[in-house]
């Protein structure tokens, strides 16, 4: 593989920073799931920039790669990435939660390039399996990528789908676990421990990879070294941090779904750019 150049890494970091700004701006006026959005932002930025064979003029191309967000509540990261990459005008992000647009708390097909809706956890691995099966029937080389949450791994349908995907040898299917160590209100290991996680996937017949989900060089190494025609689906455990980029949000169980004031948003934007920490007073809303 050819490593990413320093310049390219800087470009991706700059893109990810702008996506994080969008996420912060969606954390007011009704709010959003900020912690989960920040944890998968680099993954989504990387996949759309370096891996997926998709572009704004090819969103209906049958030979495109598919990207599915199964843990749908982190969709602000996807909205921000798609807007930055020109899939829809950035101005539309101001319509977050407006009845006049379709930019709400979970993904939906009202947004260009969003392939399928999610919201209820444990659904899109099976939808991805169906897409991958059809791609194989048509003998094309495109692939299907699906991001799962680590909390989402509690759902039985994920494991059901993993058995089926392995049985059908879907080597055009790549799942990515946003391993931010948290489920809604508590650390995964304190509630339903997942570790050792990689051996579980390996035992189910998946090629299993481990990477740093915030390091573009590491992500690039993982995804570009992935062999094809292996007869096995692949899964990438991406180590991430809930709230990544905002120290006052990072790894805080109580900063899950948040609805900040305009003043807090301004402080968080400053904090994102390395200035002083935000003084947050808004309470987390427990919606689940």
């Amino acid at each position, binding site marked *: 593989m050819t490593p990413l150049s320093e310049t390219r890494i800087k470009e991706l970091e700059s893109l990810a920073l702008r996506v994080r700004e969008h996420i912060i701006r969606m954390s007011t006026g009704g709010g959003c799931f900020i912690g989960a959005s920040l944890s998968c932002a680099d993954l989504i930025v990387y996949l759309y920039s370096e891996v997926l064979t998709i572009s704004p003029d090819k969103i209906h191309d049958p030979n495109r790669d598919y990207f599915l967000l199964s843990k749908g509540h982190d969709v602000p990261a996807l909205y921000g990435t798609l807007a930055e990459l020109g899939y829809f005008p950035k101005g539309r992000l101001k319509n977050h939660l407006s009845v006049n647009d379709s930019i709400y708390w979970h993904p939906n097909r009202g947004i260009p390039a969003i392939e399928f809706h999610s919201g209820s956890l*444990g*659904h899109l691995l099976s939808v991805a399996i*169906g*897409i991958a099966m059809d791609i194989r*029937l048509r003998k094309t080389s495109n692939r299907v990528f699906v991001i799962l949450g680590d909390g989402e791994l509690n759902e039985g*349908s994920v494991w*059901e*789908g993993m058995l089926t995907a392995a049985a*059908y040898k879907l080597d055009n299917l790549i799942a990515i676990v946003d391993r931010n160590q948290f489920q809604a209100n508590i650390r995964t290991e304190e509630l339903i421990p997942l570790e050792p996680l990689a051996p579980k996937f390996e035992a189910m017949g998946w090629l299993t990879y481990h990477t740093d989900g915030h390091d573009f060089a590491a992500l690039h190494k993982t995804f570009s070294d992935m062999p094809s025609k292996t007869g096995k689906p692949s899964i990438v455990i991406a180590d991430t941090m809930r709230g990544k980029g905002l120290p006052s949000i990072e790894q805080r169980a109580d900063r899950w779904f948040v609805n900040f004031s305009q003043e807090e948003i301004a402080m968080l934007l400053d904090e994102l750019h390395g200035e002083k920490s935000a003084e947050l007073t808004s309470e987390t809303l427990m919606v689940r």
Partner: protein
Amino acid sequence: MRTYEEVLLECALRDERIIVMTAENRAAIRNMPPKLGERFIDVGIAEQTMIGAAAGLALRGRIPIVHALATFLTFRAYEFIRDDVGIAGLPVKLVGGVPGFLSDGNGPTHQAVEDVSLMRGIPGMQVFAPADIEDLAATLPLIFESPAPCYIRYPAPTPTNIERVRRGIGEAEVIAAGSDVTILTYGLLVREAIVARELLEQQGISTGVIDIRWLKPLDVDTVLNAVSRSGLIVTLEDHFLTGGLFSILSELLVSKSIISQVLPIALEERWFKPALLPDALEYEGFTGKQIAARIASRLTVRSSKTKAQSFSEV
């Protein structure tokens, strides 16, 4: 007569969009794997995965037809049907095996007697409950032509030999017209309704029978016509009283401000006694003879009440 499998295979060989899927229930599609190759997909005992994968295939332009027992399909995978098929409005065709009394000795875990209620509650979902394989096989090509998702209650294997003229989606078949009573029914119980009609006619009671076929979309005109021509309407179904044909008729009558005499024959707030089919029908009071007796009794009570009332008025 052609089997379901033969007709399905014919459709699938003609239209490569059709994908035949199952959650390891091959009873009705046993011979298909070698003929369809990779277009036959058995996901294993994994109804949720089957529905999600069907949605994924439909997103790519396929028309999946999925098979499982009606209970596991519509209950176990309900949220997947609602979210991945219903919200997306995808043309996935759902075939539920051994619905209603057809689960005979299996017990309540296998009794789909609330499936119509659940499936018709999903926006855009069609619900088809044919009386026999002949009707299912004849209608199948139309179901594939329709872009809507569709739930099919897979019928009993024995034929009814009904001569049909109504084949369209949302069309009911008037098997016989009657002025005293009309029985509205679907699926397995159509044949019992025909037996009940013969017995009632022998008693001089003019009895109609309508095979509703489609619970959704409902043949509103045919139903309203029967309501206006019959003194009593009977809804007969192997389904809970809640949410099935009785509910559908009630909704229609209320929405049209029509007052009518209705006798519902359905399962009320409980599952049925598991036994071989003829014994379960007998135990629960759903044989043609028992249905006729219930209807005759209702008509007698009503007419004696009416007489009593008229005497007192005199």
